[in-house]
């Protein structure tokens, strides 16, 4: 039994490692007197197939943490390791390709290129890499996100919720190691927000997708497997299998 698992791990070494981890991450903006320590020694792991949420008050460093994990920004000290890749060792081009091939993004706004149709937006990372989309995967993805009939439309012709689901489809089309979502429901009404979160949860449950989401909404966080609370650039608390109430309690506890 043990040898079999070991065997599997040797064949697919990635399986053994977590999806991403950050070790003693420090991020300092500015210099001298004006310097701000946005991250002050953060260490965390994100397992494969896990839906993790990051919460914290404004200025706690949650967006910085996400940006550094996703290869959009670099740490001042410490390491970010995505699967087996140490992001600190990558140049701009390798980093760009890593984002294109192994990471998916959903932002709060400005998720879509206005001149491209929904379909063109979804396959953008593939076309940028000079690859074609697998038809079956694209069909499955768009129908599971409920946008299969909107593919020919321009972003301006879609509702906010539909735009975010198109963005999610784009983020997932490359089957990324990790999906990063930065306040994805921030601009949505509660109905559209719940719809989007259900679809993201579905991706985790159905395809074993790993997700890291930054949010300040307790209800959104309740869809995750685990919540990390940040304050002043440090991880101050962890909550496994959160509910809206337990998240709200934790926030209240941190504020006092």
């Amino acid at each position, binding site marked *: 039994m043990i040898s079999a698992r070991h065997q599997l791990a040797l064949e697919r070494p990635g399986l053994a490692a977590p999806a991403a981890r950050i070790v003693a991450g420090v991020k300092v903006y500015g210099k001298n007197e004006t310097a701000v320590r946005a991250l002050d020694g953060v260490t965390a792991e994100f397992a494969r197939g896990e839906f993790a949420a990051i919460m914290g008050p404004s200025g706690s460093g949650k967006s910085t943490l996400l940006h550094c994990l996703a290869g959009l920004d670099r740490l001042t000290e410490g390491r970010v390791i995505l699967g087996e890749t140490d992001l600190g060792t990558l140049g*701009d081009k390798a980093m760009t390709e890593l984002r*294109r091939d192994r990471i998916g*993004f959903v932002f709060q706004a*400005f998720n*879509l290129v*206005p001149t*491209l149709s929904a379909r063109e937006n979804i396959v953008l990372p593939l076309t*940028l890499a000079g690859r074609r989309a697998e038809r079956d995967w694209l069909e499955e993805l768009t129908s599971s996100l409920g946008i299969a009939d909107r593919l020919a439309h321009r972003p301006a012709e879609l509702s906010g919720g539909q735009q975010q689901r198109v963005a999610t489809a784009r983020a997932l089309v490359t089957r990324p190691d990790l999906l990063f979502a930065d306040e994805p429901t921030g601009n949505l009404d509660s109905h559209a927000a719940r719809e989007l979160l259900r679809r993201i949860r579905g991706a985790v449950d159905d395809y074993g997708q790993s997700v890291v989401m930054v949010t300040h909404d307790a209800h959104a966080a309740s869809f995750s497997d685990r919540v990390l609370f940040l304050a002043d650039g440090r991880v101050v608390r962890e909550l496994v299998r959160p509910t809206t109430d337990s998240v709200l309690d934790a926030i209240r506890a941190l504020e006092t």
Partner: protein
Amino acid sequence: MWRISWKGVVGHKVRYGLTALAVLLGVSFMSATLVLTDTISRSFDGLYSSIYQSTDAIVRGAQAYDPGASFTSQREPIDASLVRTVKAVPGVDAVAAGIEGYAQLVGSDGKAIGTATNGPPTLGEAWIDVRALNPLELLPGGRAPSASDEIVVDKHSADVGHLHVGDRVLVLTKLAPARFTITGIATWGSADSPLGASITAFTPATAARVLGQPGKVDQIDVQATPGVGRSTLVQRVQAAIHTPGVEVVSGQAVTREGQDAVHQALGFFNTVLIVFALIALFVGSFLIFNTFTIVVAQRMRELALLRAVGASRAQVTASVLGEACVIGIVASAGGLVVGLGLAGALKALLAALGIAIPATGLVLAARTVVVCLALGTGVTVLSALLPARRAARVAPVAVLQEVGIDAAPHLAARVLGGSGTSAIGAAVLGTGLFASVPARVAFVGGGAAVLFVGLALLGPLVARPASAAIGAPLAWRSVPGTLARHNALRNPARTSATASALMVGVAVVALMNVVAASTKASINDVVNRAMRADYVVSSGGVAGGSSGFSPDLARSLARLPQVSAVTGVSGGMARLYGSPTTILAADPRHVDDLFDVGVTAGNLGRMTAQGIAVSTQAAADHHLRLDSAVRVTFPTTGVRVFHVEAIYSARQMAGDYVLTVAAARQNFPLNLDFQIYVKVAPGVTTAAGRSAVEGVIAHYPNATLMDQAQFKANQSAQVDQMLNLVYGLLALALLIALIGIANTLALSVYERTHELGLLRAVGMTRRQLGATVRAESLVISLLGALEVLVVGTVLGWAMVAALRSSGITSLSIPFTRLVAVAVLAGIAGVAAGAAPGRRAARLDVLRAISTE
């Protein structure tokens, strides 16, 4: 409001920087032109004043009419005996007999000094012993000519031809070429020579022989004894002379004539340069319009805020126009300064090209300052007018909303306005081209400008389908291409306005190409049809010009046994039917052997000295038949009546009027042949004929021997030379158009920061992003080039049609050249996209995606 405007400019200085640069370039061209011409004319004004300082009166032949600026005498010489008469008048201190004519020096390298085509004149004159009356001042080490084979030459020619005191040099005159010894080198006042003209001064006796006529002088300069006033002197000299056709004028009057001649010569130069400066500013106005439209769109929220806190519509408009005003004034002032530097550089360049300008400081007239500031600021404010009005229409509530960029005017309004404006422009242009109205150039220029604005208004209608078509091949299997095509389509108004700026500059290039190609085709056509001569010996000069060949050359060639027919062609300007006209003259005995000018009536070969041949066109215009009388007024000899003895059709070859050599010799002051046509005798091989002719012309370093093919090539080369000059002058307008593309793209990159950041975040490489921006630039410039090909070709066709009466009868559209122009515009467009592309690629991903 001024405060807000000022802050607006300072706050957006990067965005306005290139706009200001466009204005600055246009204004600097203008200011350089004005400063340079002012400087030249001021220094010549001074030069003429100092040269004629001691000349109190001048006695010379009267003119039937003033033929305008000319460096050579257009007057009948007067009797040399008058010199003694004038000298005897009480109050006359000194007199000097002036004799002028053609004399061209040959440099130590065996080449004639001074080009006959459009170059400075080559003058010969009599050395004047009275120092105060002689404009030439000997340099140390030289002396006045005293023997018949001695000369003094100007310093400029000495420098160019590497001539020194003591050298024996060949001099071309109306007689056979002869050698002279240089006894001195002189300056002309403080200048090396007047505008680079070459001057050869002979002893008075030699001058009378080689330049003028024996017993005649061209003018008598008179110096008064101290205490005698100029007007008194003029009156006394006048009273002493009883010869008709002789006038006495004061030194001041002659000074003014000389100054006017320089002003007139500069006036043309000035007009041409100002036209190109205006083209540059016109192109710039598209750029300014575009920048303000984009910046206003980007600042909708800010402007809405102004409205929300209580600014009226008029105040918002005023604040935007105020910004335009600030930019206009700052850029114009900058342009003025840069222009001053440019003028200095141009002055040095002209000096290096041999057009010596006396050393004086640059002249910055108050008029220059006013014109440059008013023009630069005016163009900027006018171009910003529409965007400013659009800014005022922002609703205050827009401060709370996401507003769409660029509310484009109504389609119907655009079609109506665009076609209306185009029609007006085309009508004005057509009037200028085809109708006989005063100030045709103004009609043509104004009409073309209005037409361009109209076409620019219509542009967006074509821009959408055209950009889609142009972008299609780019978009094929390429993400940057697809995005670029979409971006160009996104805002057709902006794409089109940017492309239009390029169109204006390149359309003039295309137009000139069509005109040039048609001119060349017409020349080839005429030479093929009308020329029977085997060879042309050309001096490079023009009919009535100040240089050419001594009639001796044609006579020598005619004596060759290998040659069957020869005629020199000379000519000059005279007044016919109220307007100055060029008249050619040839030897009638040989014309039929050498030309086929398509005689429709009469006999050219038997024309007499009382006869004139006219073109069918002139015959139709003035209702002339064989034997009709034609009154010709010559500047020198006055009215002469000729009778029509032949009518011909090939006016491109022969012009409208042809006289015999005999008639020309009597009535034109200089009788130099500018071309000689030669036919080889039957039975003589071309090679033998050619070498015989070459043997004779070897004594004339200013002669070029050409067969028919070479002659055609030579004429084409002259057309190309003009074309290159136009290219040079248009370079600035094209540069501004390219700055316009770069500026629009830079503003677009700025506007699309979020979008570009997103692309980078989802995995677009820097290289791909840069390529996207460059591809959009390519689409824009190809759109501009496409418009150019259509507009430029049509305008060129109209121009050629208008020039039909001037001898351009064949329309030729140089497709390969036009395509080359389009390709170059495309390449330039990609180059213009390079900087914005780099900027886009350098974009910080994180900052781009984070919300403001």
